[in-house]
């Protein structure tokens, strides 16, 4: 039996802000391809969203929480810079303390990195592992970078199982970047100097082309493409450069905003909830370089998606909020100290 994804779960906060509200308030919108974004309520953060996504994955999993050997957690916006956020998640998911917990961050790329690490852990030690990517990236509300930022979480149980969705190939690129999406220690808000170097397209193309060459895959053998999508338009641009059909693209960004480290993993879940067994999914994430991966959809993911609430159902059950509610619930107006 092969090691792969045997169950998945998603969480998207109910709160939705139509980006037309942002345009009305600020007189402009930096991400017109995003229609709505999801945002956490006053009592939600990447830890609570991660727990809920993790619980859905475990409800669908052939392995129980106590069987997990590790949890890899990815976020760029956890409530603590020191003190592992993942330990809270582990305590909420399982009563067992005999578990390895690893936290990853640094860029939106962390989400797919957590999934890869969970796969590598599981393949090395023949034990099930979990990957959770949960994020609510935050920038100053007066900055154009903030317009498209959303929130959500994705979780995967990886293990040896009949019909698992298997990892076929990986290609990684690392580059140094300057002034692109960063946040210094102690700072609350993301910054971007907008130098328009477009490292993203270059790294992503390089990683995907390397992957396809190494694994001898052609674009015609790819059924779904999940690409980094900070603005609702980047995947179409990359697909054009690759020569891929835009119908193959899967991204939730136009509906829930840029969910940071959770964005690409949520796109993968959209593929797992849609494809037939045997189809190939190409998944690539970005952050000072890129990781490109290819997966072969398995029956286990079809079984998983039939249990409980579907991703589409979660997406449809949003509740529209005003821009004023957004500022309040997101904590922008709370007086500190």
């Amino acid at each position, binding site marked *: 039996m092969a090691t792969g994804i045997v169950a998945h779960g998603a969480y998207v906060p109910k709160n939705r802000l139509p980006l037309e509200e942002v345009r009305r308030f600020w007189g402009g919108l930096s991400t017109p391809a995003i229609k709505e974004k999801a945002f956490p309520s*006053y009592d939600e953060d990447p*830890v609570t969203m991660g727990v809920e996504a993790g619980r859905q994955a475990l409800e669908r999993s052939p392995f129980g929480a106590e069987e997990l050997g590790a949890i890899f957690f990815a976020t760029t916006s956890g409530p603590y810079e020191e003190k592992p956020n993942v330990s809270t998640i582990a305590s909420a998911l399982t009563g067992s303390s005999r578990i390895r917990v690893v936290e990853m961050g640094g860029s939106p790329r962390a989400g797919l990195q957590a999934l890869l690490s969970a796969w590598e852990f599981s393949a090395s030690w023949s034990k099930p592992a979990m990957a959770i990517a949960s994020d609510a990236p935050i920038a100053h509300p007066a900055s154009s970078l903030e317009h498209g930022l959303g929130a959500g979480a994705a979780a995967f149980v990886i293990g040896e199982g009949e019909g698992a969705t298997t990892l076929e190939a990986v290609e990684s690129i690392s580059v140094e970047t300057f002034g692109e999406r960063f946040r210094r220690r102690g700072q609350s808000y993301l910054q971007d100097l907008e130098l328009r170097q477009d490292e993203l397209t270059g790294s992503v193309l390089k990683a995907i082309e390397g992957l396809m060459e190494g694994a001898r895959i052609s674009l015609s053998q790819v059924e779904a493409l999940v690409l980094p999508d900070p603005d609702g338009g980047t995947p179409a641009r990359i697909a054009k450069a690759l020569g891929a059909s835009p119908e193959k693209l899967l991204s939730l960004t136009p509906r829930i905003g840029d969910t940071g480290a959770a964005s690409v993993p949520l796109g993968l879940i959209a593929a797992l909830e849609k494809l037939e067994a045997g189809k190939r999914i190409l998944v690539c994430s970005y952050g000072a370089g890129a990781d490109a991966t290819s997966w072969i959809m398995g029956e286990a993911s079809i079984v998983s998606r039939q249990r409980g609430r579907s991703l589409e159902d979660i997406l449809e059950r949003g509740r529209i909020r005003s821009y004023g509610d957004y500022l309040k619930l997101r*904590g922008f107006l709370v007086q500190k100290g």
Partner: protein
Amino acid sequence: MSSYVSLPIFASTLRERYRLEEPRCRSCGTLNVPARMACIECGRGDFDWEKLTGRGRVFTYTVIARGGAPTEFDEQQIMSGSLVVAIVELEEGAKVVAQLTDCDPEEVRVGSPLKAVFRKLYDQEGVVRYGYKFVMDEERE
């Protein structure tokens, strides 16, 4: 006014707050919620911990207007206005007091189906306190 819970006391109840596990008496089978040293029904002290389903119904509820909650909820009330607190009758029969979240007070009814979720309770002494709240269970509407 604050209903202060010290961090060590809070830490000793994590199993209940984080995973909704509660002790069932080995002698008489009563589910003790919240956990106690001696069974509320028969007074004995041997328990088996059980993971509850988190499904329940509104037994009764109250809406606390802005400023009416203990001080640790001040920040929440600034952000959300009034808050809804319910006595929830769990599927297993026991009752717990908890906040309802993601819902408008007008949509709550006695008997509404609920589901436990993991949320931030409040932030105090620089430490985030997490635990369960309840949301309307849309799969059982």
